[in-house]
């Protein structure tokens, strides 16, 4: 599903973000990526959807070798990967429905299919009744649910989430985690970078810990392992 072999990343300013990374994530796995700020988590996550290219090593996602992926094929890769961010990245002038439909419009899906799939997905995240609202009229948790709906509306095999509960209160964070759990139960791989110790220690999954650009721990049903 996702494989990294001897991956290293040095940015043009000389910062060595990652080195000697080797991982293998199976289809349907749920993986937490933990580590202190600046440890290299974001670079690790961004490499999976080809936002950042490795300086060395090979990465393969859904059987596609990202190191050899031509620039014009990157959009095709991203259509099979859902991405969720801490700051939601919603378009403020579009309604909830339009924000989710946007992900299907860019791949030029049929309007009837878009309508059906968007409403189904909004129902899954519990926002069908707020489809016409603007993001500014929603709470943080609801905005994150819209962002999740957008990431899964094209039924990707993998969803990558970069601190999705970072801006949310504990109660809302649990709601969001329940949605991720449900998505994972349907067979979608989830890779989530997080600082939330309680979530990692309560909903047990594989934990990859990164420190100083290296994987220092990789445990099935692991613990957060840091003081939050």
């Amino acid at each position: 599903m996702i494989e990294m072999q001897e991956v290293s990343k040095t940015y043009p300013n000389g910062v060595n973000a990652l080195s000697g990374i080797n991982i293998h994530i199976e289809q349907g796995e749920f993986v937490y990526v933990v580590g202190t700020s600046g440890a290299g988590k974001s670079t690790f996550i961004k490499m999976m959807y080809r936002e950042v290219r490795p300086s060395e090593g090979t990465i393969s996602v859904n059987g596609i070798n990202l190191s050899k992926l031509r620039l014009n094929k990157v959009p095709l890769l991203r259509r099979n990967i859902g991405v969720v961010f801490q700051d939601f990245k919603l378009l403020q002038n579009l309604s909830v429905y339009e924000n989710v439909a946007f992900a299907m419009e860019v791949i030029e899906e049929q309007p009837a299919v878009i309508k059906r799939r968007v409403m189904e997905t909004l129902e899954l995240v519990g926002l069908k009744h707020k489809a016409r609202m603007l993001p500014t009229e929603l709470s943080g948790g609801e905005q994150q649910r819209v962002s999740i709906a957008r990431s899964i509306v094209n039924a990707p095999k993998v969803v990558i989430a970069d601190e999705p509960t970072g801006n949310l209160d504990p109660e809302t964070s649990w709601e969001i985690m329940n949605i991720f759990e449900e998505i994972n139960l349907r067979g979608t791989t989830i890779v989530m970078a997080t600082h939330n110790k309680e979530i990692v220690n309560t909903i047990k999954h594989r934990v990859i810990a990164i420190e100083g650009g290296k994987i220092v721990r990789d445990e099935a049903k692991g613990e957060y392992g840091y003081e939050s």
Partner: protein
Amino acid sequence: MTFASVSAVTVTLLLVGVFFVIMMNLNKMATTIEEDVEIRVHIDVAANEKDKDLLEEQISELGGIKSITYSSKEKELDNLIDSLGDKGDSFKLFEQDNPLNDVFIVKTKNPTDTIKAAEKIKKMNYVSSAKYGQGKVEKLFKVIKISRNVGMVLIVGLLFTAMFLISNTIKITIMARRREIEIMRLVGATNAFIRWPFFLEGLWLGILGSIVPIAAVSSAYYYLFDFIQAKLKDQEHFIQLIDFNPFVYQLSAVLLIMGAAIGIWGSLMSVRKFLKV
């Protein structure tokens, strides 16, 4: 932002339009002046009709000759008398014993070839002299050449300034929409899909921005043309503006195409930096 972009196109195209009208008219005047340059070949009094025919043939064989007009010494005297008005009457005495020469008036296809042609004609048999306003013509050609070059440089400079200005204005608009572009890229939109709305927006901004300059320049030229032509109607030539029709329609088309082109160019150039992966 849209207002700023349209204003930038409007202001720059207005400048381009006004400058274009001035340059085209100056060019027309320069061409008119250039076309007035001629070589007056004074034929030796000893030449008979056969010699004159031979000389005319030799001149026409020089290449690059547009026209050769024969003017007899009698006609030359009449012209002289006419040109002097009342004072010309005293020259009527010469009608009995005309001291003037028969003349070939030679024009070259390319006015700047006049000097070379005159030098060659001077060396021909039965040529008393070949005059073309030596000294003055060289200066005239130099002034015209410099003004044309300066005009070209200014127009090109103005166009680049326009592109820079529009590109920067649209860049500001696109900076405000970089989030939209970022999200489009994240959900797997191709670069062509992302560019398309910006292409249309640039085209639209360019066309919208060219409307005011087209209307302003066209109406201003309409009144200016009437005004100047009325003032100068007694003049035979020299200062003559380019006719309103079809010049203004051509100019409008140029401004419209230019507006659309720089609108699209500015838009696509600005969106480019956000499309790099």
